[in-house]
């Protein structure tokens, strides 16, 4: 199917700024699903609040646009009641790491079969450029006018520590690899986290001397490196991308099915 068969054209034009990374992520999601051949009616997209979360409405799947930070909680209820459905949960960094941090670590702990796609642009875009838990030290934001002093989360280690069984990082510059990673994340039985570095030229970029989308994508190109590369040894500041973990572990809904058998036999 063509990309346009997966979107709700009725609701275009979309609300993202020119150069925003989120459209690239949406395109990659569609291509991954197309490659996997999953039927549209078997897919549910659950999102929270923020620029990234608006992906939800544009996609021709079952779509649920929820509350700030709570997408994974809604998705958990939905998945547990219909385990045969494929659930994708697009989120932003404020959504996933700040207000929704609790749900993120607990979804990882349960290893419930959801795919969290976290578009990390290091800023709150929709509310106009405030600092987030992934804003870098010294970065400027509308609530960090003297430079941010809050240390940021390392999202990959955060979810690894919480028990996620599939963890990957990619960027909007590396689209082919993003599609590939998303395919694997969606196929993986268990909680999958894909962090996508996705540019917000409007707020993060403008405030931090990366005024255009091109500047920001060059930043992703030059400042990231495949996991375990030689470059990383030479330059430890490079951000690694690729799949950090992909491990078979008991999945929550499958465990629940066993629990039901046990309860029935007692």
């Amino acid at each position, binding site marked *: 199917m063509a990309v346009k068969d997966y979107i709700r054209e*009725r609701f275009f034009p979309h609300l993202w700024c020119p150069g925003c990374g989120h459209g690239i992520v949406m395109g990659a999601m569609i291509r991954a699903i197309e490659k996997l051949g999953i039927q549209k009616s078997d897919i549910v997209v659950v999102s929270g609040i923020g620029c990234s979360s608006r992906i939800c409405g544009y996609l*021709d799947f079952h779509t*649920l*646009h929820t*509350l700030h930070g709570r997408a994974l*909680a809604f998705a958990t*209820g939905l998945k*547990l009641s219909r385990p045969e459905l494929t659930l994708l949960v697009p989120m932003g960094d404020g959504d996933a790491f700040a207000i929704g941090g609790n749900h993120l670590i*607990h979804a990882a702990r349960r290893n419930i079969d959801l795919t969290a796609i976290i578009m990390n642009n290091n800023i709150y875009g929709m509310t106009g450029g405030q600092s987030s838990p992934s804003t870098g030290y010294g970065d400027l934001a509308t609530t960090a006018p003297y430079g941010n002093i809050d240390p940021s989360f390392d999202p990959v280690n955060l979810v690894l520590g919480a028990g996620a069984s599939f963890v990957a990082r990619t960027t909007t510059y590396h689209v082919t690899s993003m599609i590939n990673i998303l395919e694997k994340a969606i196929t993986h039985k268990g909680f999958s986290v894909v962090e996508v570095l996705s540019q917000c030229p409007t707020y993060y970029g403008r405030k931090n001397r990366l005024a255009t989308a091109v500047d920001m994508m060059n930043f992703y190109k030059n400042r990231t490196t495949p996991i375990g590369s030689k470059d990383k040894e030479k330059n430890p500041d490079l951000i690694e991308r690729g799949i950090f973990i992909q491990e078979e572990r008991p999945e929550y809904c499958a465990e629940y099915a066993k629990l039901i058998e046990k309860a029935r036999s007692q």
Partner: protein
Amino acid sequence: MKNNVLFLQGNEACVEGALYAGLDFFAGYPITPSTEIAELLSYRLPATGRKFIQMEDELSSMCAIVGASLTGKKVMTATSGPGFSLKQEAIGFAVMTETPCVIVNIQRGGPSTGLPTSGSQGDVMQARWGTHGEHAIIVLTASNNQDVFAMTVEAFNLSETFRTPVVLLFDEVVAHTREKLTMPEPGEINVVDRLHTSVPKGTDYHPYLPREDGRLPMSDFGGVHRYNVTGLAHDMWGFPSTNPTIVYDLMRHLVDKIQGHTKEITRIKEFFVEDAECLLISYGASARTALHVVENRRERGEKLGLLELQTLWPFPADVVKKRCASIDCVVVVEMNMGQILHEVKRVIHDGDKVFLANKIDGTFIAPTDILDILRIIQGKGA
């Protein structure tokens, strides 16, 4: 029928009612004094192939049931005071998205952590207005196990009929009182199932276009119709809109579908009201004490009656107004500082004849708390 008589707590009666109504999915978080509901359902639901999940917090429990409801399941969560506060944002989401769900709040003393193991009726206004924004909601209560069961079934029925969250506003006293429950036979109480759309696959389904009767047939997530559900103001497709006409119609629909059906939603019980000169109005655990006083005084020939409210919201204004019209004095009996009192005063336009008998110290309201007020009203001194 002897086998159908159980001896149990109010919380257990609520569980029995929920299962009778067809509960498929429960999400919750431990909190006193509602925890028994979660504990029991963790045992009962999986044994019949249904789902129970203990979530990481109160907020996620509320979110999880909304997610599950959209797949066509009957859902419930249970909590108490502080947990009810935490759930409010997601209750508003269920209001806005018209997602059927039942929320049990076993009231305890507040504000804040307050009195976790004491009865109270301090959340009447929170149940009505707890979530932000203009909206309507259905709130039911009960004073004994039989009615807890019946109102729990009603809560599911009304939630499906009106596509709205329904709050079961019980209290610690009722929740923890052990007494008899006669289990109704299957079919004895009507059970309303979800209204599904008859729009076939391939034909446009408008998830938020009300039928002529105001109802909105649903399509399950995972079914043939793919649509958007959002907490933003939305059009008939469920897509965000700021168009004033669309927003106005949505707001009116959300409120009118409930306020406009107050009569249909009203559940009350009346005791000795026909010839009453003085009327007690009460609900929940307080109504037990009120009934005791009424029965006792009737034996002495006093013309005292009781109107027990089981629907608190939408407030049954017409019933209260009609009942109070020929009454000399009205005493509202509740365990707060007059939350239903204000409603009664508001609707009968004769505030001077309305009095309050209440209790707010964590102890259960006693007959003397009501009798003292009656003596003052009758000019007999305190």
